[in-house]
């Protein structure tokens, strides 16, 4: 099956059906997903199973989406999450 794509910042990232957004980004060599709220430091996936909440992203304009728990979909617009994002705001 040919790969499909979603958008991450200014790149096109390919995925196969069934992959999470985080898995597709890691496969593309992208490890830096967000800035932390307290220290404003870069952070990326740690557990890949929905427990650590380190892979939070802005997905289609919605903040605090768990990249490892969100299935990748064609045409999604995914962005790094900045430090000052409020949990639950959407």
């Amino acid at each position, binding site marked *: 099956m040919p790969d499909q794509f979603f958008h991450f910042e200014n790149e096109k990232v390919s995925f196969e059906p069934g992959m*999470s957004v985080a898995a597709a980004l890691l*496969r593309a060599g992208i490890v830096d997903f967000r800035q932390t709220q307290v220290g404003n430091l870069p*952070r990326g996936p740690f557990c890949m199973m*929905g427990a650590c909440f380190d892979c939070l992203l802005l997905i289609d304009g919605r903040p605090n989406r768990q990249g490892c728990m969100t299935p990748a979909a064609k045409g999604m617009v995914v962005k790094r999450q900045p430090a000052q994002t409020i949990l639950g705001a959407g």
Partner: protein
Amino acid sequence: MRVGIIGAGPAGMMAALTLLDADCDVTVMDEQPMGGGQIYRNAARLDSQQAAMFGSDYVSGGDLVRRFRAAVGGRLSHERGATVWSVTEEREIAWSIGEKSYSRQFDAVILATGALERAMPLPGWTNPGVMTVGAAQILMKTARHVPADSVLIGSGPLLYLVATQMVEMGVPPRALLETQTASDYLRAAAKLRPNITVLSYLLKGAGMLRKLSRAGIRRHTSVSDVSISSENGQHRIDFSSRGNRHSINAGHVLLHAGVHPNIQFSQSMGLDHRWNDANQCWDPETDAMGRSSKQAIYIAGDGAGVLGADAAKLSGQLAAMALLEDRECRVDAAVVAATLARHGRFRTIRAFLDRLYAPKAWHSQPDDDVLICRCEEVTAGKVRDAVSLGCLGPNQLKAFSRCGMGNCQGRYCGLTVVNLIAETRGLSPADVGYYRIRSPIKPITLEEIANHDIIN
């Protein structure tokens, strides 16, 4: 009778199949789109050649997932992609699927929520590109992508398993930095009580080490005092091994210090727990069949105490049979006795593994400047300062520092906090206690809670 099972790993699937045979109505909730848990993640989806790279245990796990999938429909319902955010001792379960929540009352509940990898706080462990060994394996299973040029740090069977799977997939790791020491081997050997389960584990272990050696993978042992610095996607690891300082570069850094039960639900329900000194963690209190301290609540699999996937299947059967016994349904006593005996044999090898791969003080009690709470970015020093100001336990620590109050709700700092407070106050971890865990146990909007549907 209607039974709710949380978790579709080996324990949850086996419990469901056992109850189905006894004509119960069963609902299994799991966060993933497919059954299998983390251990058999994606196992039913990969073709036989892809699955074979992960070994025969994974292939047979795929068969179990297919058996479970075939049983869905009629009396068995599988809620996929379902994040459970509340379970009460009155046996009401609430879950969320695609930002819509539901709740339902059950006659009995089986918790089969598995294990978490123990945190290994050390300088640089929060840098992007540093993940757990289990995370790398999930990436391999779900995206068939191996993190290139990896260095694996820590100890335990999963470290070797994932390293050999990387070799099998043609992207071998650069090196293994193993924390166990020569004296760990000696003390662990004293715990060996050979039986068929123990022998098969030891043979598997020896096979993995042979494969790594043939592939020319460098293994450092007695590793301690590790720090990671990262720049432009490259990592430099400084460490001690057998008294000498070394440094090594890596494309990815993967950490693993064993696994411990995921106790978020059992704690939030106020079930009894006991400190497991051998595996340095809290285990829920259960009898040999998986009965918890509260009526009609059962715990199966690694969530009841870590014994691995094969034991988890037996434990799922045992919990289901306990439930049936308690409801005065007919259960074959000979099957119960045989399953209990087989399950018990896994405790022997666990005693050996727990001793050999026991967590080290240098990572369970890190230096002051190391972050221990990844969410609220609290250092070990801040915890020690709070204790010196009179903070007595993990719950007060929240008020002092916000430690444990972030998104992960203490999953990755809880045990470190217990160790740090115990060490600083001169108490045992058992006397320190644990965070009070409350629902919702995963972040959810108030709107979704308010609008949730009650299923009759």
